[in-house]
């Protein structure tokens, strides 16, 4: 009786151990797949920040929170910056805001920042998604130049899909041509 119980126990243990190994194996495989950067297409990626190939991380924008909701002091620092039509270069005003932002980020080293790139409603949706991407990355590159680690900076483009306002006038268009910042 006791012997057969031991044998059963042994079999169960072996099974569990095997199962655990294969689980670990599978998980590892999954991580590699989602984190994969090694397709042929981007082996010629030249990251001009000099940091080499960036790890692909599937960020969920939902994990970042709106700054204005929390802290008025922070809200003053993490203001939107604005762009000219069909342009993604940083205006002097934008640079000033980013300077202050970088200062805060360098002091609060645990924080991470998500930069959203947006456009006004004029122009093709697809082109604007690409333009929003450029705007977010413009701001990101500037922060990196000021010393913020690229590993702390995430970007996402929303093109013209998430406007702040809907009026068809220059005032509203200007508001919408923005980069917006969230932190966590």
């Amino acid at each position, binding site marked *: 009786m006791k012997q057969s119980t031991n044998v059963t126990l042994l079999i169960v243990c072996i099974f569990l151990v095997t199962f655990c190994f294969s689980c670990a194996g599978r998980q590892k495989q999954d991580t590699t797949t*989602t984190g994969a950067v090694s*397709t*042929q*297409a*981007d082996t*010629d*990626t*030249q*990251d*001009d920040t000099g940091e080499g190939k*960036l790890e*692909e*991380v*599937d*960020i*969920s*924008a*939902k994990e970042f929170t709106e700054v204005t909701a929390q802290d008025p002091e922070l809200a003053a620092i993490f203001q939107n910056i604005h762009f000219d*039509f*069909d342009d993604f270069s940083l205006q002097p005003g934008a640079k000033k805001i980013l300077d202050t932002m970088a200062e805060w980020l360098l002091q609060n080293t645990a924080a991470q920042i998500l930069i959203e790139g947006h456009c006004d409603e*004029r*122009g*093709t*949706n*697809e*082109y604007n*998604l*690409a*333009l929003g*991407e*450029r705007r*977010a*990355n*413009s701001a*990101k*590159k500037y922060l990196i130049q000021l010393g913020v680690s690229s590993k702390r900076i995430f*970007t*996402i*483009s*929303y093109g013209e*899909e*998430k406007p702040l306002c809907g009026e068809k006038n220059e005032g509203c268009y200007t508001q919408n041509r923005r980069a917006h910042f969230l932190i966590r």
Partner: protein
Amino acid sequence: MLAVLCAFTAAPASAKVYIDIHSPSATQFPIVIAPFVKTGGAPDSAGTVTTIAGTIAGNLAFSGFFRVLDPAALDGRIFTGVTRDKIRWDRLAIIGAEALVTGSCSFAGKDRFSTELRLFDSVQAKFITGKKYEGTTADARLVAHKFSNEIFRRLTGTEGVFETKIAYVKNEGGAKEIFISDFDGHNPTKVTRYRSLSLSPAWSPDGKKIAFTSYKDGNPDLYIQDLYTATIKKASHKKGINISPCWSPDGKRIALTLSLNNGNSEIYVLTADTGNLERMTHDWATDVSPAWSPDGKKIAFVSSRAGGPQLYCLTLKTGKVTRLTYEGSYNTSPAWSPRGDVIAYTRGVDAVFNICLISVDGTYARQLTTRGSNEDPSWSPDGRFITFSSNRTGRKEIYIMRSDGANQQRITQGKGAKTDPAWGPF
């Protein structure tokens, strides 16, 4: 369920050419739809007769090839029934019609009905074709579309688009969802329910799948949804944007835009079954919105390499890129005609946008729209019509028109801006 009983067709296909679709559209072919006859049975409580006759008339008129005559002059002096022997052809000639459609409908309980539709050559007093349909009154428009295609095929020798579909994006309180409707906007069905941003629907050539970009998992990733099984798979989820899908004509590859290189958008080609990605553009500028040629040999796309966005053409075999548009400083959204000879696109002048055509060799361009701001052209599968979005009534809605700019009509209505139309295949 709709049953088509192919009860009767004419003698061998007539050699007569009724409408020469290749000649410049000078005269329109005059056709008349006789008032339908209701035979026995229950009442036509859903107005099915009016729906069928009206939809056929609308389809034929929209195509631009037909002048649909007013049937008001047709009465008991001309018809005593719907078959050839019951028509006074000499009296019919007076109104100038060259073809005649007759219909008889009978209704039964539980919304069931059956209809016999016939097409005649009224000049030769000859029967061309006829069909008998059975179904429920909810099928009325489908019956009309099917018979419209039948008329179109018999008289032009080519396939009609009256049963095709259009996919588009609708704003529902801030979220964007993909819908599919009949080509005329009826019967809209919701395809995505992610309450996120789902954009840029692109039909697979066999019409069974839609590729689109969605933020439903946070990042703008590319998805393929099977319309029959409702299963969805993530086709591309690279860092950055995975947008603007366009299927190759053989359905095996998808051209798309990725920005995984530091936010610089480039054109890639994804092979659907292997997942292999091939990069097609290599430059510092923004490259976006690929559009495959119908012979599969070239891809038109948008690039800002000359400053503002312009159209370019990439030859896949050689990798050579030539510029297509030189007029204007903002040209985007290319859509290659299924006939291969022209590309529709959006041109912006002082932020007012219009649909334009340019010949593939770049020598000839023309503007098709003039009212409001118009974007995102997409071709019908026969290359005769274009769908696009326009804000000319205030809110962005979906429109269809002939490829020469004629017969522009709105097909959507109601709350929520509608954009990104994509015309489905046959």
